[in-house]
């Protein structure tokens, strides 16, 4: 029987939208004394519960502002939910905005170690996979150039190559299959597909319904922070399409 690798239980995420941003001490004290520290509350996610079994590929659908990225960040551990809990079994690799962890003054070579360390890899592991990363990124001689001189495509390519060098139990993809040129896009999609074949669990966000259909077998539809449909991809996609009309 398949086992549950991800369990999201009653998760809610609250943000305070200050009507005026207070970030200096004087304003804070004045407003505090006058009891004017008012926050507008905004629940980006509310009562979100679902389970993912090993090997499932779950597409997360929804319009802009539905809470898709917030949900992925909660699962990745970057955001701590205001209420509820997230249980994860196994290792997790988040591919959210590739290359965000790079240092601009560092060369590509140095960034491989830095970014790899950030993803929690050991030095030996990165050394071992080093050539593979450079080769996959197709950066060639640019690997010894500071990252500030890279194009955005080059940065994403390097980020993608570092992040996908491990085979995680859970892979989180946020619009990343649109990196680089058409050739690299094909290559990265092939890489993801080969990982999927090895029974990796995937959480996938994309605005392209066609892409989600191709990658996923399950889906969740979010609207204003609530789950309004979940289940087999075709059923949920039908609901989503009816929403778009």
């Amino acid at each position, binding site marked *: 029987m398949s086992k549950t690798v991800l369990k999201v239980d009653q998760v809610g995420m609250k943000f305070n939208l200050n009507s005026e941003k207070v970030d200096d001490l004087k304003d804070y004290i004045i407003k505090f004394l006058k009891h004017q520290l008012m926050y507008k509350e905004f629940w980006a996610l509310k009562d979100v519960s679902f389970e993912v079994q090993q090997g499932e590929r779950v597409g997360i659908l929804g319009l802009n502002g539905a809470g898709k990225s917030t949900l992925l960040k909660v699962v990745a551990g970057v*955001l701590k939910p205001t209420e509820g809990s997230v249980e994860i079994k196994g290792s997790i690799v*988040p591919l959210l905005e590739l290359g965000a*962890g790079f240092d601009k003054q560092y060369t590509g070579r140095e960034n491989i170690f830095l970014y790899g360390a950030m993803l929690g890899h050991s030095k030996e592991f990165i050394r071992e996979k080093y050539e593979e990363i450079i080769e996959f990124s197709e950066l060639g001689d640019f690997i010894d150039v500071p990252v500030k001189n890279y194009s955005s495509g080059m940065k994403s390519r390097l980020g993608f190559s570092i992040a996908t060098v491990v085979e995680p139990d859970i892979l989180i993809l946020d619009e990343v299959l649109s990196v680089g040129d058409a050739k690299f896009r094909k290559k990265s999609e092939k890489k993801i597909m080969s990982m999927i074949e090895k029974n990796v669990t995937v959480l996938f966000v994309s605005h392209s319904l066609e892409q989600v259909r191709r990658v996923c077998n399950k889906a969740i539809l979010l609207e204003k922070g609530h789950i309004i449909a979940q289940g087999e991809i075709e059923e949920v996609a039908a609901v989503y399409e009816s929403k778009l009309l």
Partner: protein
Amino acid sequence: MRQVKNLMKYRFLLLELVKKDIKLKYRRSYLGIVWTLLEPLLTMIVLTVVFSGLYGKADHTFPVYILTGRLLYTFFANSTKAATKSIRSNAAMIKKVYVPKYIYPIATTLSNYVIFLISLVVLVIVSLVLGVYPTLYIVEAVVPLMIVLVMTVGVGLCLSTMAVFFRDMEYLWGVILTLVMYCSAIFYEPDRVLRQGYGWILDLNPLYAVIVNFRNAVFGHPLELFSLYYSAGFALATLLLGVFLFYRKQDKFILNI
């Protein structure tokens, strides 16, 4: 237990961040790491010329006196300033990848500590040249050097937490550091202050307490016990406060950066 396991997992990242700080600090400068030694040496000469001229004194060991105070102060000032900014300057990473956040202020402090330890070479050379030879008491120097590290990590954790919510901290801390500098008897001898009845200012300053004992070790005197207990107590208290503040507030960081 989970925290310890986490730290083990991320110790390579800590090492990488420390290395990055040091490498990037001197990259693209011609003299590179030599500046670690040259900078304190040059400032020492300036301070010596200015202050021994001012006081009309002819104590030939005065440069050693200045250097001991200044090196410790510079380490404390640079680390705490960098730690204050550490969360904000790493905002891009904090928003994207999960990494224990305390690693950022601690990495900047450690990289400054490594630079500080390297710059102690200047102190050794200047001391030998000016005839301040090490005695057995030099072993004591380890104690103030440990205390200042703990104190700096503690203060850095407090400041980095506060600066996330109040950016003013960055500027305010710069002013406070100037005050600390003048209250640390770096380039004057404390007798002057004591004679005027302001000795309590020095007594209150925990950084001065560290400097006093570091000087005692270098000049071959035993450690002064009041300063030892006071600075050690202060260091421990700030560390506990820093850890407490940081852990209570760290989940809110991402909403404010």
